[in-house]
């Protein structure tokens, strides 16, 4: 009995030490992958999971993507947010099996611009959200795909 109590205390101490180590490295904590949002299978559910179900259409989000993509495996998408104080840019391909593709957070020094290559299984809207001041702004661009990129 005495022994098991000592072991319990020991493991509690080890856990506390690990937690302190975790707190001392906030970088690792900051970037916890959002399993719930990335696992959603529809645009509406992904937006809801992100807390972005309500978003105002905005012309301040500039999306540069091809009108017609010959190869759905590599579709270049360039995004610039001119929404003041943009903190995050979210990229979704509406008709992909898992619509949420990426979320970029911009801290001090990071410019709200990104270029990323995405996979597209079929023709779809590429939807981009910008988060600023706790609100979401949205824009989209339609991309027609002639060869899908999610098969092989």
């Amino acid at each position, binding site marked *: 009995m005495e022994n098991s109590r000592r072991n319990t205390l020991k493991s509690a101490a080890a856990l506390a030490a690990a937690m302190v180590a975790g707190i001392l490295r906030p970088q690792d904590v900051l*970037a916890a992958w959002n399993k719930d949002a*990335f696992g959603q299978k529809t645009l509406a559910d992904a937006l809801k999971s992100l807390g972005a179900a309500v978003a105002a259409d905005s012309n301040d989000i500039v999306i540069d993507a091809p009108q017609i993509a010959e190869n759905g495996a590599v579709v270049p998408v360039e995004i610039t947010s001119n929404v003041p104080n943009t903190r995050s840019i979210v990229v979704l391909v509406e008709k992909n099996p*898992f*619509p949420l*593709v*990426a979320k970029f957070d911009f801290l001090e*020094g990071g410019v709200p611009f990104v270029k990323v290559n*995405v996979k597209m299984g079929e023709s779809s809207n590429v939807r981009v959200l910008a988060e600023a001041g706790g609100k979401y702004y949205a824009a989209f661009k339609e991309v027609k795909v002639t060869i899908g990129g*999610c098969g092989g």
Partner: protein
Amino acid sequence: MADPMKIRAGLKGDLVDVRVLMNHPMETGQRKDGSGNLIPMHFIQEIAVKLNGKTVIDAQVSQGVSRNPVFSFRVKGAKAGDKLEISWLDNRGERNSTETSLA
């Protein structure tokens, strides 16, 4: 998967244009191999861009990013000699990190 990343960083004034190429299969878990077995998911989940050790861009990505991902980013407030570091972590816990000095 520990192939080094290729980083190209151009400094104009205090603005850095960064282009990075990561070697990674970005498997979706939906493709099949030659004998019809599903190839397990294997993709980068987290990316961090740091300037002199301080995170400036922090990204979470899915299997919807193309194989051997290429990203362009922009960072401001930099000067020659600053260190730019890019690192990633995938769903199997593999990591990679590359640092470059701005010139």
